[in-house]
């Protein structure tokens, strides 16, 4: 039984279906990556798991509980964290305030969690009084991930976390993500940089036209000649 699973998800934003019977699952401490061509429904699949669109068919289960009907805010309360692709920080608020907002739903003392985030992203501790809007792209992504971590989620979902950042920053970010996974959090990522993402992935889902095309470990997918040819631009 997977920790988080979206089974046979079918649905869209009101018009035609974007997802067609797609299944995505991730275990605790595992890194699962969703890749595929543009328009394949990668982000849509993740949004469906988070409850930002309603499914015509299929179900979403977290730790055995059916959460298909829950709103995104409720899912946050259940332990899901979501890092959107864009507009994922409060630009006019300081780094520390962003983290505070991340912990908004918590009633206990979250100083400990904040220290953990600072340990994970040391540069944020340095810049914690600065407005998030003044940081570089890579640093902002760190703030965005840090914000999501403040609720101590059991699952962390990231929508194209390395979009628009330089390769060095991307490597750093992936290193951090591996560290986060090591603490036992399930990680689900949608990525355009398929090669680098599959490199660190325990499980990879290749989506085409809203359905599962290939599902395997990251290594296996990287070695798969068809996958390499079509999505990784290799031989």
């Amino acid at each position, binding site marked *: 039984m997977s920790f988080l699973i979206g089974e046979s998800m079918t649905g869209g934003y009101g018009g035609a279906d974007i997802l067609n019977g797609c299944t995505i699952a991730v275990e605790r401490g595992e890194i699962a990556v969703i890749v595929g061509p543009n328009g394949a429904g990668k982000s849509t699949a993740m949004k469906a798991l988070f409850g930002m669109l309603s499914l015509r068919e299929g179900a979403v289960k977290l730790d055995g509980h059916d959460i298909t009907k829950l709103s*995104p*805010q409720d899912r*946050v*309360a259940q332990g899901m964290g*979501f890092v*959107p692709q864009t*507009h*994922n*920080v*409060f*630009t*006019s*608020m300081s780094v520390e*305030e962003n983290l*505070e*907002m*991340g912990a*908004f*739903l918590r009633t206990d003392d979250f100083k400990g969690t904040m220290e953990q985030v600072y340990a994970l992203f040391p540069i944020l501790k340095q810049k914690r009084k600065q407005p998030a809007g003044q940081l570089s792209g890579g640093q902002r992504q760190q703030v965005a991930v840090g*914000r999501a971590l403040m609720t101590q989620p059991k699952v962390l979902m990231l929508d194209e976390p390395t979009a628009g950042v330089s390769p060095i920053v991307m490597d750093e970010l992936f290193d951090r993500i591996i560290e986060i996974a090591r603490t036992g959090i399930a990680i689900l990522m949608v990525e355009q940089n398929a090669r680098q993402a599959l490199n660190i992935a325990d499980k990879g889902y290749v989506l085409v036209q809203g359905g599962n095309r290939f599902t395997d470990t990251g290594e296996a997918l990287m070695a798969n000649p068809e996958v390499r040819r079509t999505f990784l631009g290799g031989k």
Partner: protein
Amino acid sequence: MQDFLNGFMLLSNFLIVPATAYGSQLAMGALGVTLVYGILRFSNFAHGDTMAFGTMVVILVTALFQKMGLSIEPLPTALLAIPFGIAATTVMVLLSDRLVYRHQRKVRAAPVVFLISSIGLMFVLNGLVRFIIGTGDQRFGDGERFIIRFGEFKELTGLDEGIAFKTSQGLTIVTAIIVVAALFWFLERTRAGKSMRAYSDNEDLALLSGISPERVVMITWIISATLATIAGTLYGLDKGFKPFTYFQLLLPIFAAAIVGGLGNPLGAIAGGFVIAFSEVTVTYAYKKLLTYWLPESWAPEGLVQLLSTDYKFAVSFVILVLVLLFRPTGIFAGKSV
């Protein structure tokens, strides 16, 4: 030296002190408008008449207190009545949100629909205030009228010109400082205040963080009603209460908010003073001042008044247009929805 000081006194009495008081009133009015804009994302044309409503309640309660013999000499009795005014205005404002704006939020109506709705509310409030209290001028200030009188000041300093510091002016400035400090403390230091800033900054992310939109909306209206009542009462104590004048204040208040940067509280305050000082500076007759400060032969003949006071609104308006043309986001960049 004497002449210079005299001139300075003149400037203070007729320009600096009144402009500071007026600026404080505008700043508080603009704060109410800018908060609603930043969080509810529309321009509330009913704000002027909300101020009138709040002031009306204060006046009625003040009259009651005066009859009961309550007094806090030398301060005006109206101060005691302000909490009641705030309470009544808050109820009215929350009620109108529930009846009018909530539906529009639910159907995600365009900002212009909110604007039109606020115009409808403006009509209703306008009529209601006139209905209850009439259209005449109301003077409800009591207590000591001056903190220091013209004559007293002259005696103290021995100059020809003095400064008359009205209680209402002093009250306005002190209250404005307290209110603004409280507001900023709330926004910067409390969880609720930060949640409002977050909601204003990035609505979707705020919702994701679990911030309750309805709660934020409610707090915004409460603060807006409070600011409106206080600003309106201070203005009324200073210049008298007449329902029509509060509608006319819409223009300088919005000008202040826009000049400072719509949606930015600091901007609202800065804008308030910019507008107030500009209005007073441009319409002041400098003849006497120049007579003090310039050598005899240069003493002016005419009034040396740039614009007559009837064109006060033209000043706020021109500044507004200039800002909109050359720096639309305002002094402190606000948001444009």
